[in-house]
C-alpha cells in the first residue's frame, strides 16, 4: 500500500539531508540474513553474500551473515557455507524457540542483533520468510526498507542505491535510505549471480542469546507440510512450468500440456480464460490475479501474452512461446519461439524429451 513514487517531490523529504545523524555514525558493515529453515539454506542467501561481498569491499568494511536456528547442529552446515560464500563474520542466535520460522522470535533476534552490533546495511531474500521478517524488523527499528530489489549498488557517497521494479514491472525506481540505519533491502531470488564457493574458507563466529522463552511466543507451529510430500500445485516454486492458453482450442487438448509437464517433472498451469472456461482449476491460473511464477524454464503453449499474463511470468529465466502467430504479444518478452500449432508441437516435444532423457540417464 505504499504511495506511488513521486520523483519530483523527493527533494522536499526530510530524509534528503546529507549529514547522517550522530547516533547512526557508528553503524558499520554489511549484513546478510541467512535463511536456513529445515536445515537447508535458501540459495538467495548465497546470492546475497556474493553481492554483499562487493558492497562491503567497496565500503572497506566486513561482510557478516546472520544465522538463526533451533540448535547448533541444525545450523552448523549453514554457518560453514556462509563463510565459504564470502562472509568474514557470522552472527548466530540459537534457541529451540527458533526451530521453525515465526515472526515474533525471529524479529526479536534480528532487532537485538542490529541494535547491539549496528550494521549499516542489512539484506534479506525477497522470499515469504524474508519479506515477513524484513517488514517487522524495519518497522521496529523505524528505518527504511526497499522491497524486492533487482539491483544493488553503492553510490559515490557510500549510500545504498536499491533498484526495484514497480507498477508490475513496467517501471524501475532507485530508492535510498539516507538518514536512517541500517539501510534495509530484500532482493529477489535468482536475480543476482551465485558466487563461487571457496571450500575451507572460515571466519569469526559471534553468538548472541535470544532472551525469549517458548512461553513468550503466542503463535505456535502445529505442523509443517513440505511441498514434496503434498500433491497440491506448487507453481510459484517450480523450476519448470508448462502452461496452456486458448490456442489449445479444447479442454481435451490441455492433456498435451500435462503430458509434457509429466516428462519434464514440471508444474502445469494456464492463462485466465482457461479458468473461466473451466478447463483448469483456479489454483493453476498464471498471471496477475493468479500465480506469479519464476521458473528456470517456462513453456507457454497457445498463450498470446496479454499484459496480465506477462507480469506473472516475466521473472522466468527462459520463456518459450509456442504460438501460430509470430506477432502475438508474447513474442515481445519470450526468448525462444516455436511458430507453429501448439496442439501439434506439444506431443512432438514430449516424445523428444522422453527419448533424450531415457537414453542419457542410462549413461550417468
Amino acid at each position, binding site marked *: *500500500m505504499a504511495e506511488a513514487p513521486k520523483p519530483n517531490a523527493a527533494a522536499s523529504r526530510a530524509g534528503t539531508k546529507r549529514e547522517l545523524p550522530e547516533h547512526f555514525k557508528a553503524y558499520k558493515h554489511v549484513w546478510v540474513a541467512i535463511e536456513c529453515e529445515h536445515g537447508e539454506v535458501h540459495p538467495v542467501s548465497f546470492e546475497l553474500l556474493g553481492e554483499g561481498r562487493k558492497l562491503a569491499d567497496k565500503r572497506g568494511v566486513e561482510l557478516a551473515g546472520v544465522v538463526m536456528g533451533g540448535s547448533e547442529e541444525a545450523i552448523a552446515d549453514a554457518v560453514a557455507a556462509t563463510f565459504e560464500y564470502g562472509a568474514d563474520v557470522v552472527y548466530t542466535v540459537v534457541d529451540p524457540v527458533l526451530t521453525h520460522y515465526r515472526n515474533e522470535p525471529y524479529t526479536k533476534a534480528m532487532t537485538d542483533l542490529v541494535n547491539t552490533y549496528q550494521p549499516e546495511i542489512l539484506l534479506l531474500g525477497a522470499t515469504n520468510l524474508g519479506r515477513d521478517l524484513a517488514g517487522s524488523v*524495519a518497522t521496529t527499528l523505524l*528505518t527504511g526498507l526497499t*522491497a524486492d530489489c533487482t539491483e544493488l549498488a553503492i553510490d559515490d557517497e557510500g549510500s545504498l542505491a536499491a533498484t526495484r521494479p514497480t507498477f508490475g514491472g513496467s517501471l524501475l525506481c532507485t530508492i535510498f535510505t539516507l538518514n536512517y540505519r541500517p539501510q534495509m533491502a530484500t532482493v529477489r531470488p535468482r536475480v543476482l549471480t551465485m558466487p563461487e564457493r571457496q571450500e575451507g574458507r572460515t571466519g569469526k563466529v559471534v553468538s548472541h542469546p535470544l532472551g525469549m522463552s517458548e512461553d513468550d511466543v503466542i503463535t505456535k507451529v502445529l505442523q509443517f507440510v513440505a511441498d514434496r510430500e503434498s500433491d497440491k500445485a506448487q507453481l510459484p516454486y517450480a523450476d519448470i512450468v508448462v502452461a496452456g492458453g486458448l490456442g489449445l482450442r479444447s479442454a481435451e487438448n490441455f492433456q498435451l500440456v500435462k503430458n509434457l509437464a509429466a516428462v519434464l517433472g514440471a508444474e502445469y498451469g494456464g492463462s485466465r480464460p482457461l479458468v473461466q472456461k473451466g478447463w483448469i482449476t483456479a489454483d493453476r491460473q498464471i498471471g496477475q490475479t493468479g500465480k506469479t511464477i519464476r521458473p528456470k524454464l517456462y513453456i507457454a503453449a497457445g498463450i498470446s501474452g496479454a499484459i496480465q499474463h506477462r507480469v506473472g511470468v516475466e521473472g522466468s529465466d527462459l520463456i518459450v512461446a509456442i504460438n501460430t502467430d509470430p506477432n502475438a504479444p508474447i513474442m515481445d518478452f519470450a*526468448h525462444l519461439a*516455436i511458430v507453429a500449432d501448439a496442439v501439434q508441437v506439444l506431443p512432438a516435444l514430449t516424445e523428444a524429451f522422453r527419448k533424450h532423457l531415457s537414453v542419457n540417464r542410462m549413461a550417468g
Partner: protein
Amino acid sequence: MHIVVCVKQVPDSAQIRVHPVTNTIMRQGVPTIINPYDLFALEEALRLRDKFGGEVTVLTMGPPMAEDSLRKALTFGADRAVLLTDRFFAGSDTLATSFALAEALKKIGDDFGRPSIIFTGKQTIDGDTAQVGPGIAKRLKLNQLTYISKIEDLEPENGVIKVERRAEGGVQVLTTKLPVLITMLEGTNEMRRGTLEDALRAAKADVVKWSAADAGIDDLTRCGLRGSPTIVKKVFAPEARSEKAKPIETSEQTMETIAQGFMSELFQRQPEIEQDLLRYAATQFAQEG
C-alpha cells in the same frame, strides 16, 4: 466480531507509462480499481462475518477519489467504509503508511469496536512491497500471519485462530490468539458478485472521511514525505529488449525435427536445465526399477 480490511486503490493493471522527456509517471486516463490482491482479503472477511456474525469495515488511505474503491467494497457487502485522506499523507512510503493506517485503526477501534482481525492483501500491484501489513501488525502489537492460504478454524469467543500459511518449501499450520493481522494469499477464494440490496445500500451509504487530525494523528512529522525514511531518487522505464523471441526453424520441417531443434537450442543456452532433467529422469528410473 469486528473485522477491518485495508484496501488500496491502484491504477488498473500495468498500463502506466513514463513520460519520455520528464521521466515522470503518466497516470492520466488510467482507470483505477481496488488492488486485486485485496479482494481475496475482503472476500475472506465477508465469509467470516457471514459465518460468525459481526461487521466488516473497509479502510483505505488515499486521495479523495479513493472513495470510489470503498463504495465498490460496499457493493460486495462490506458494512462500513473509512477513507483516510489528507494532503499531509502525500508521498508516504511504507513506514509512514503503516503509521497512518495504524492510527486510523486505533480510532476505528474506539469508535466502532476493537477489531479481532485486520486483513490486508498479500501486496499491491503498483508498489508490490508486501510491507504495510507487517508494519501495521508491529505497530498495533497484533499477531502477524502473512501469506495465509486457509483459515482452518476460528473461535471468536476463545480468541483462537488456526491457519495454513505458505512458508518456504511447504505449508505451516499455525495457531495463535486474536487480535491478528492476516495478509491473504491470492487465489484462495473468489470474490462474490454482491447483491442488488448491497448495491443500493452502497450507492446511498455515507463513507466516513477522516483527516489526519480526525484520526487522532498530531505528530505530522511521522506522516507523508516527512515521515518517510526512504526516498525515490530515480524512476525510469526498463530497457526494452531489443530483439524479439528467437524463432526455432519451423518452415518445411517435420514436428520431430522442430522438437529436436528446440531441444538442442534449449540445452545449449541453459546446460543446467539438461542436468536438472537428467537428475530428475534418474530418480524416476529408480522408482520404476
